[in-house]
């Protein structure tokens, strides 16, 4: 923002914990929050990526620390929140951006496929938001391990971080939680059954938490991005066996005629976390260029 414009979206003296912060949307959120003046506790399982992001934030004059954490693991979530408190002395904002989408043209997502997907991205992990592996599968095609992995990262991970962050945010006098769901948390997607179920779960976890914790001055909201220009989208095209450009062109077919950027999702997360949104809670904010406005 230029100097002659007001800075209504400031987060000065706030501590923000961002999961999935090493790449994709989480990374953009970390940068945006760092620019807005928040101290950023960056959480991911990708140490190298996370290290890069915090260095970039510091180079821009912000404050950031990286914490390695697998959000599907209860002990690690609890430890990460404690460490954040030790380092920054408080916690005000939680952004749950860790997540994955699993789609596959061929359903047999056995262990070998999984490994292949990991190899493609070199160190890509299920906790890395918006860059995750992709399995596109109907219920019949989804095996139990796939289901568990999807629900663990997208839904249980969000639950666990909230569970351990909430008491700390309450101690500090309240704050905000922003969960990153998806347009496919609101409408169905073909051959994405487990993903849709997990993201729909995030939407209603958001609303239920908003009701439970409003009286403790905690606002809980949810961003539902549509197709966003990340490596994940290209991986999806590959697995669908479609030429990338064709796939991306189809994904861009919406009122705004293009894909979203991670920054555009991050800007919305920043608004919802800021005091400018102090009367907004339990709300889902769709950021998809109009993709959900029409029936097609």
């Amino acid at each position, binding site marked *: 923002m230029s100097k002659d414009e007001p800075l209504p979206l400031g987060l000065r003296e706030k501590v923000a914990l961002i999961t999935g912060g090493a790449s994709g949307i989480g990374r953009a959120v970390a940068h945006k929050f760092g620019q807005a003046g928040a101290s950023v506790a960056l959480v991911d399982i990708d140490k190298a990526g996370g290290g890069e992001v915090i260095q970039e934030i510091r180079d821009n004059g912000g404050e950031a620390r990286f914490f390695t954490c697998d959000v599907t693991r209860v002990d690690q979530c609890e430890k990460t929140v404690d460490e954040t408190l030790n380092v920054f002395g408080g916690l005000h904002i939680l952004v749950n951006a860790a997540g994955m989408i699993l789609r596959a043209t061929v359903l047999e997502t056995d262990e070998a496929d999984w490994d292949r997907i990991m190899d493609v991205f070199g160190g890509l992990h299920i906790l890395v938001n918006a860059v995750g592996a992709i399995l596109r599968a109907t219920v019949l095609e989804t095996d139990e391990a796939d289901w568990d992995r999807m629900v663990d990262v997208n839904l249980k991970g969000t639950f666990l971080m909230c569970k351990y962050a909430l008491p700390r945010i309450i101690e500090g006098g309240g704050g905000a939680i922003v969960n990153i769901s998806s347009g496919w948390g609101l409408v169905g997607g073909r051959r994405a059954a487990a993903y849709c179920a997990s993201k729909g779960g995030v939407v209603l976890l958001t609303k239920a938490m908003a009701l439970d914790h409003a009286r403790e001055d905690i606002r809980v909201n949810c961003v539902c991005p549509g197709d966003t220009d990340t490596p994940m989208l290209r991986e999806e095209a590959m697995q669908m066996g479609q030429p990338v450009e064709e796939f991306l062109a189809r994904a861009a077919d919406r009122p705004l005629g293009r894909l979203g950027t991670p920054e*555009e999702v991050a800007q919305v997360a920043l608004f919802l976390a800021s005091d400018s949104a102090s009367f907004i809670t*339990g709300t889902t904010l*769709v950021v998809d260029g109009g993709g*959900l406005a029409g029936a097609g």
Partner: protein
Amino acid sequence: MQGLKNRHVLITGGAGGIGSATAARFLEEGARVVLMDEDQTACRLVEEALPSLEPSILADVSDADSVEKAFIKLDALFNGLDILINNAGISVRNPFLDITPEQWQTVISVNLSGMFYVAQQAARRMLAGDGGVILNMGSTNGVMGYHYYADYNASKAGVIELTRSMALELGPKIRVNAVCPGFIMTPMQEAEYTPEMRRIFEEKLPLRRLGRPEDVAALFAFLASDEASFITGEYIVIDGGEIAGGLASQA
């Protein structure tokens, strides 16, 4: 917010509580703002409080001719329109069985037809220029049912669908969204509510406070700004958590 400086902003119903707070917010952001309202006295009061406002334009939004003439005046003032805050609306409290055809017609013609007339004029100008943003005033009443406001509720549900349809047809040059506030304490409500009524409303809301016109103004500013550049065809609820649960979630 990014991208609001020097923008041309039109606010219908601009003399009311939310309209005038929104005008103040856009002026703070460095925009040029004109109010459109049918209440000349109220416009004058807001102009006195906000001296950097452009001279207000009088119009009855429920009358297509009046709207057309008002936009000719707008053309003389602004070379092009960037942002429309389509805010004018009315509500009348009445049980469903007591709503007369006249009342029904009045509410629909201001809240829904009026919004359409203004939006169509604005969109033509935006498409002829560099595009723009249209923000329609919806309500939580357009999403959930509320006692004694059947006509108002139906009109606001109509606003949401009008918003989606406009977003489909007017993109990518124009982004169109609706804002759906819950209980907002405007000066009008402040005068109308007894302390007991206020307590009951506050108790209903998870956040335990009523919204302020400034809260809604901040959401309008955000949605009109470049920060919301990928948001269109959407309705955004700002209600202190009221409809995250609703009637089904009282227990």
